[in-house]
């Protein structure tokens, strides 16, 4: 495997990821996911509302992939920022943890 074609793979991956970031806020289903949906069917209503009132242990800056007051554009930006953050962290991890030549 050549380094050059792996860089092409990287660029293709970034392009696909950013395309998904732009499309997801418009195309992704707003329905609850499998776990949330299961919870709404099998957990008693009173307990469910208690669980929903519980705040997450840590306040996330872009909760639910949105940025306050920025609407759909904010959602695109949030997913794009997350994508680039994952990219940077994976690259950084790779450089630190790669096998020593």
């Amino acid at each position, binding site marked *: *495997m050549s*380094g050059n*074609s*792996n*860089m092409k*793979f*990287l660029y293709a*991956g*970034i392009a*696909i*990821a*950013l395309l*998904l*970031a732009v*499309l*997801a806020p418009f*195309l*992704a*289903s*707003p*329905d*609850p*996911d*499998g*776990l949330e*949906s*299961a*919870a709404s069917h*099998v*957990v008693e209503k009173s307990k469910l509302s208690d*669980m*929903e009132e*519980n705040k*997450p*242990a*840590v306040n*996330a*800056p*872009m*909760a*639910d*992939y949105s940025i306050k007051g920025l609407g759909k554009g904010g959602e695109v930006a949030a*997913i794009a920022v*997350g*994508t*680039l*953050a*994952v*990219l940077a*962290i*994976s*690259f950084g*991890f*790779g*450089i630190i*943890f*790669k*096998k*020593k*030549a």
Partner: protein
Amino acid sequence: MHIPDSFIPLDQAIIYWVIALPFIIMSMKWAKKELDEMKIPILAALAAGIFAIQAMNIPIGMGTSGHMVGAVLVAIIFGSPWAGVLVLTLVLLVQGFAFADGGITTMGANILNMGVVSGFVGYYTYSFLRRNLSTNIAAFGGAWLGLFISAIVCAIEMWLAGTFPLRAGLIAMGTYHLIIGFIGEGLLTSIAITAIAKSRPDLLEDSFTTRPDKSKKEVHA
């Protein structure tokens, strides 16, 4: 399938972290042993792509949606389920801390379910099916089963947590993820593997020459 903080009591959540930790450490050891400079761009591209595709929820009917998890795809490309654990750990870290997608206390459980269980079950199912079937069908089967089993494990964790009743929880989680696993995981993994087999067949061959047959090793977790 990202478990929020409120779904598992703290003491149990810590136990899942303790169980997840050796798997996370092993995945780092895998990187030290197998990840060379050439493969870093592949790892980073997959991690970024998986983060983005996890934002793309697909409707499956019954007022429910689901998305690809991706651990099996990464495991197949790198020829090791540890690569799937590693990528899912990195993705879940960013999702939890920046986006409140999955809790921080429950991140250990999420890493176990989506990284370890789906990755290991999916990869070894793929390896087994690959002996007699084409790559894309084996990838489909592995990814589908991996996601389904991880949902079953998740339902059991929800029961242990006192959050879901056992039977109803298993039926609901199983039904939804049978469908999510078919479309969101199986088909998408198969499509990605087919595309990679066409454009970069060396990536897939590589995983077989470096890891000839590890399917005899039992599927734990």
